[in-house]
């Protein structure tokens, strides 16, 4: 079993035995399955793979074929079924025939699951990567300021002088900003 993120490590121990029965493919099959699934591009942020985005929780090759576990970014993420079908198609192309795509809700995804490589790719594509997600315990304080405290840096010129123009952008996971220095509008992945 290869996990998409260290936080998943606790759940991986029990599944490791299944590697020996992996359709006679052994560790090579496991690696091939992981590579095929992990390379699936996200439909809404196609410069990132689902592994970069941190929504691939695990890939197991065992007696029951390949089991891929993914988690939604948002409850209403409309891309989940498309991602599932893309993962399936890529695994079929890699020579696997018995494929199950599972959903996992807990622990919930946050932008902290986006890998360093994913953050770099976002910035290269002109989308500001998210700052660390707020840590919450107990009641969530209501934000009153209409000017957000944590403005992202402009991904084009690097200026910290940016202004939020809309709290929601073309997708639920992004907000819209404008750089005061270079004047360019840009999107940012919301820290959530």
């Amino acid at each position, binding site marked *: 079993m290869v996990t998409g993120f260290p936080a998943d490590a606790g759940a991986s121990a029990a599944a490791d035995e299944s590697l020996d029965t992996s359709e006679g493919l052994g560790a090579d099959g496991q690696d091939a399955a992981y590579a095929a699934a992990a390379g699936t591009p996200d439909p809404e942020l196609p410069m990132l793979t689902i592994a970069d985005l941190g929504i691939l929780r695990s890939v197991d090759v065992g007696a029951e074929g390949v089991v891929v576990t993914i988690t939604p970014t948002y409850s209403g993420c409309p891309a989940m079924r498309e991602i599932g079908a893309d993962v399936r198609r890529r695994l079929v192309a890699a020579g696997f025939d018995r494929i199950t795509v599972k959903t996992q809700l807990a622990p919930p995804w946050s932008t902290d699951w986006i890998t360093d490589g994913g953050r770099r790719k976002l910035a290269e594509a002109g989308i500001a990567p998210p700052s660390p997600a707020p840590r919450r315990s107990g009641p*969530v304080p209501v934000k009153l300021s209409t000017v957000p405290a944590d403005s992202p840096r402009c991904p084009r010129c690097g200026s910290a002088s940016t202004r939020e123009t809309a709290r929601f952008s073309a997708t639920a996971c992004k907000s819209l900003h404008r750089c005061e220095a270079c004047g360019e509008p840009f999107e940012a992945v919301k820290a959530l």
Partner: protein
Amino acid sequence: MTEHDNPYDLLAEDQDGGHRWAFGTGFTDPLAGIDTSVPPGVDGAALARYCLALGDDALIYSHRLQEWLTRMPELEEETAIANIALDLLGQARMLLARAGGILGQSEDQLAFFRSESEFRNVRLAEHADRDFAELVGRLLIFSSWRLALFGLLSSAQDPVLAAIAAKGTNELAYHRDYAAQWVIRLGDGTELSHARMQAALDALWPLTAELFLPDGDELASVDRGSVDTVLDIVLAAAGLARPGGATLGAVSGRTGRDGVHTEAMGYILAELQSVARAHPDATW
């Protein structure tokens, strides 16, 4: 990049098993692969009724928000409301799937083939906003209450409900912040915007009592004081007064949670359900 430069090709392409995007792919269960067995010590019937009520709140409210699309004052607010409605629809799907798994019905059967008296949403969810002030005022009240509730349900005994609630918490916090900032802008804006924001809260207030009524199936109950504390912080910043006065009563002791709804509900269901009922064998 994907193998498909033209997304429309993908819609009609044969996925494995003869499924095509345009006609549904079979990957439709929002709880696919999740262990949905009811843990020992949990009353499955009560859990199903409760998930149904919370799912109905989200489904009906999401529909009401979707009605605003193409009618918002600015494009940015349109995308905001579309995304908020989408989050709530996602919560509704998971909650209805959780209830339906226990009741032996699909989420579609529950959403499209129940009659008005079988819906368990609070009446605040079905209210038709008459202006933008009512839209943001209702969103502030609803999301403040639901955020407090989901915070408690994140440690519910049923792991599926707990995971759905934990997942929704960040979303609801964002919805509440969006609403709070508009309530402050309008309340602390011009004389006219202040008056209309206050009038909106006054009109909505009678519908809030139902959120805090004790319910036999409740797995967690939100203390009204804790929600009012949050609202008071926002209203103070906005220069608005928290309304008081009479609340919308029960009808023969029954409320939205018992299937008694306002006149608005029938119109919502007519639009929500008519296509599914006209083509009961269709899949999407």
